[in-house]
């Protein structure tokens, strides 16, 4: 074990112990029940933060710093550049750099925008160009996951390097990463950092994520849970295809079971409704028995394709008999009911039914046509080809708007391994304005919460305890928005109205809180080792409305099936227009309220109507919040790196 790791572990333990000590006291002895409406939310928010500390400590417990693979690079490689609407020139810059990667490979532009000028540019450079096949017409497209899944079936390299349209790869990117796959046969993913070149030192939009592409990924890697982040990563085709096959079988088992159960119910109902027609009643009852039989043999382990094929043959035969039967019945019906718009064509001696009349017939309860129709729909649902999807096999997960995290979690649950290689091997472009950045963060958070709700890592089979915690930790961190509301409100309420969430800001409080707070800060300093993490800390508080919206919209999406409008991040500079004040009104409101509270607090102390210690504690607290939130104002005024550079030159 390195000295650094020993230090990390000592502080990890101390951070959690001092935290438990503080929180125990908070719950047991310090709650001001007279103001329970703020006291209880605050102690819950603090408990949330302690769990966050515990998850962070666990992440860092086994931090793994890899120096590089041992094996030389081997295997065939396809390089995929995914694009939707980025400028052709930008995509081609990436594509040319990809073509120049030193290790032998083939390069493909995956153009989801299906643009002729993109195709022409790619072909002119002798690069592969792939768009969606005809199978995708009128089917769910699944965004980037769909784009990659489509390309997987058009190519055959053993390994896939995935690059976003703006990520210029280093010529050695494959030499530095492929060896990991040879080192260990079960490695399915090697992720490298995302680094942005259009960001200056100040980075007002907090685009660089040095804590994540560094200690956090190294920590997750220690638990064999390095995340896939969508770009700058190499994947093993076999692992992805295996995901696709296993997912297909699982989906098919589910849908077959569901369909057969629904079919039984429907046939039983229809049979009951048509008791008056013995022929039809008998046919429907017989069919229901067949379906019940099919359901039994599928549960008993008979191959689904066989069972559904047989059942389909029987249903086809039955519906043919029914339709014939039905025609006879219909003729009888028609003869009997004079009110129907039916005429007898004397010349041709046939019954003529007009369209309106036929419609009326099919909607009437007594018409057996409805039964035939329902049976037909069941036949469709029983197909083994997932008729609702363009491809029966979908290697990259489609359960979330961020396919990367969901896919990596599937891979891990199937026993595949991942590696995080900490070396910048591709350089890309970050959003250049606040609006675009907010949309991007919202999408990431939404995607994470979708996975949390649809395929919860704590319940997912096949993951180790460490892997569960690593995925859960990331999801947990997105609940921070709710805690932030409490953290912002509590000091405002105290400074303005004197309402105390704790019984006293006494010696007891400082004796328990200060060690917890200081050790946490130290722990964070040790982990980040000189990396600038202040931007990240600011944004984790300052983006509280984004985190809350991500949670509520994903919940509405997963539980109530409300659509999340999927946003592709713009990478070609700023969106024009005025200041996006509308996007950040909650933060601006919070800033205003904090300042008012600060002034009120000071005035109250001067007037002698407030407690000095309590006010001091709360003023420090408010000052921290203001310092964090101020990044929003900086971001609002930011005009992109180009403008920033010009200003700097003008000044010098």
């Amino acid at each position, binding site marked *: 074990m390195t000295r650094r790791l020993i230090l990390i572990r000592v502080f990890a333990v101390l951070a959690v112990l001092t935290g438990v000590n503080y929180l125990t006291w908070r719950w047991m002895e310090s709650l001001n029940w007279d103001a329970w409406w703020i006291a209880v939310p605050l102690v819950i928010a603090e408990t949330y933060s302690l769990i966050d500390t515990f998850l962070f400590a666990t992440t860092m417990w086994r931090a793994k710093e890899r120096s590089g693979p041992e094996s030389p690079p081997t295997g065939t490689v396809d390089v995929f550049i995914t694009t939707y609407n980025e400028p052709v020139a930008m995509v081609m810059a990436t594509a040319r750099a990809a073509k120049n990667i030193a290790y032998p490979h083939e390069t493909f532009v995956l153009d989801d925008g299906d643009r002729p000028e993109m195709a022409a540019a790619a072909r002119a450079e002798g690069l592969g160009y792939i768009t969606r096949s005809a199978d995708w017409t009128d089917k769910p497209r699944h965004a980037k996951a769909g784009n990659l899944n489509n390309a997987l079936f058009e190519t*055959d390299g053993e390994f896939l390097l995935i690059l976003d349209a703006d990520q210029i790869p280093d010529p050695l990117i494959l030499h530095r990463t492929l060896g990991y796959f040879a080192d260990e046969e079960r490695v399915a993913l090697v992720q490298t950092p995302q680094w942005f070149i259009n960001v200056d030192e100040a980075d007002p939009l907090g685009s660089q994520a040095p804590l994540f592409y560094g200690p956090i990924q190294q920590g997750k890697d220690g638990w064999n849970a390095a995340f896939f982040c969508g770009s700058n990563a190499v994947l093993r*085709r076999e692992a992805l295809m*295996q995901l696709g*096959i296993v997912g297909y*079988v699982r989906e098919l088992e589910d849908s077959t079971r569901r369909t057969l159960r629904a079919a039984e119910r429907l046939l039983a109902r229809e049979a009951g409704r048509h008791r008056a027609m013995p022929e039809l009643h008998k046919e429907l009852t017989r069919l229901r028995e067949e379906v019940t039989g099919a359901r039994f043999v599928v549960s008993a*382990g008979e191959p689904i394709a*066989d069972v559904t094929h047989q059942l389909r043959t029987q249903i086809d035969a039955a519906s043919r008999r029914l339709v014939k039967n039905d025609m006879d019945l219909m003729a009888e019906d028609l003869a009997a009911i004079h009110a129907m718009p039916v005429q007898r064509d004397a010349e041709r001696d046939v019954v003529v039914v007009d369209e309106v009349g036929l419609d009326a017939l099919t909607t009437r309860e007594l018409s057996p046509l409805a039964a035939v129709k329902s049976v037909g729909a069941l036949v469709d649902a029983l*197909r*083994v080809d997932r008729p609702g999807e363009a491809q*029966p096999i979908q290697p990259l997960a489609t359960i979330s708007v961020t396919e990367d995290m969901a896919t990596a979690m599937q891979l891990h649950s199937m026993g595949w391994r991942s590696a995080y290689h900490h070396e910048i091997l591709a350089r890309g472009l970050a959003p250049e304005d606040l609006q675009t950045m907010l949309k991007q963060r919202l999408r990431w958070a939404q995607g994470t919460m979708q996975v949390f709700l649809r395929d919860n890592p704590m319940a997912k089979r096949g993951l180790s305890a460490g892997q569960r915690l690593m995925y859960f930790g990331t999801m947990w961190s997105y609940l921070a928005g709710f805690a932030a509301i409490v953290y912002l409100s509590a000091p405002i309420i105290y400074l303005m109205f004197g309402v105390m969430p704790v019984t006293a800001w006494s010696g007891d409080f400082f004796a328990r809180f200060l060690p917890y707070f200081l050790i946490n800060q130290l722990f964070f300093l040790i982990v980040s080792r000189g990396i600038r993490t202040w931007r990240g800390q600011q944004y984790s508080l300052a983006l509280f409305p984004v985190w809350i919206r991500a949670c509520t919209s994903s919940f509405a999406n997963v539980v109530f099936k409300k659509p999340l409008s999927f946003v592709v991040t713009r990478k070609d500079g700023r969106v024009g227009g005025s200041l996006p004040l509308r996007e950040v009104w909650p933060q601006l409101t919070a800033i205003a309220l904090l300042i008012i509270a600060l002034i009120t607090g000071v005035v109250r102390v001067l007037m002698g109507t407030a407690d000095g210690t309590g006010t001091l504690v709360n003023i420090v607290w408010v000052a921290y919040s203001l310092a964090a939130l101020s990044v929003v104002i900086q971001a609002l005024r930011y005009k992109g790196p180009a403008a920033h550079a010009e200003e700097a030159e003008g000044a010098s």
Partner: protein
Amino acid sequence: MNLNVTTHTRHAVVRPEGRLTASGAPRLKQAIKKLIDEGSPRIVVDLAQTEFIDSSGLGALIGGLKAARLAEGDLRLAAASESVKSILRLTSLDRVLRDHPTVEAAFGDG
């Protein structure tokens, strides 16, 4: 991988010989598509001479199954070796496709 295709009165037989992997999968898909286009959607994939199959190969089988079913036919497997059978089990694809003992038995039930 070698690919051997023969047509019979009631069905066609596709015989992949050697290793059926990502590089051979597109050829298998093409062969199945061609049979269906020519009016033989009842297809047996004879795996007797297939030494190994990877997930891309399995993907081609599922793609073939879809195409055959859409053309009112079917795709069935026959005579898989022990190693191929174990891959079918590992991916749980044996829950979907049955491995018939012989090519003749594959469409035995009609």
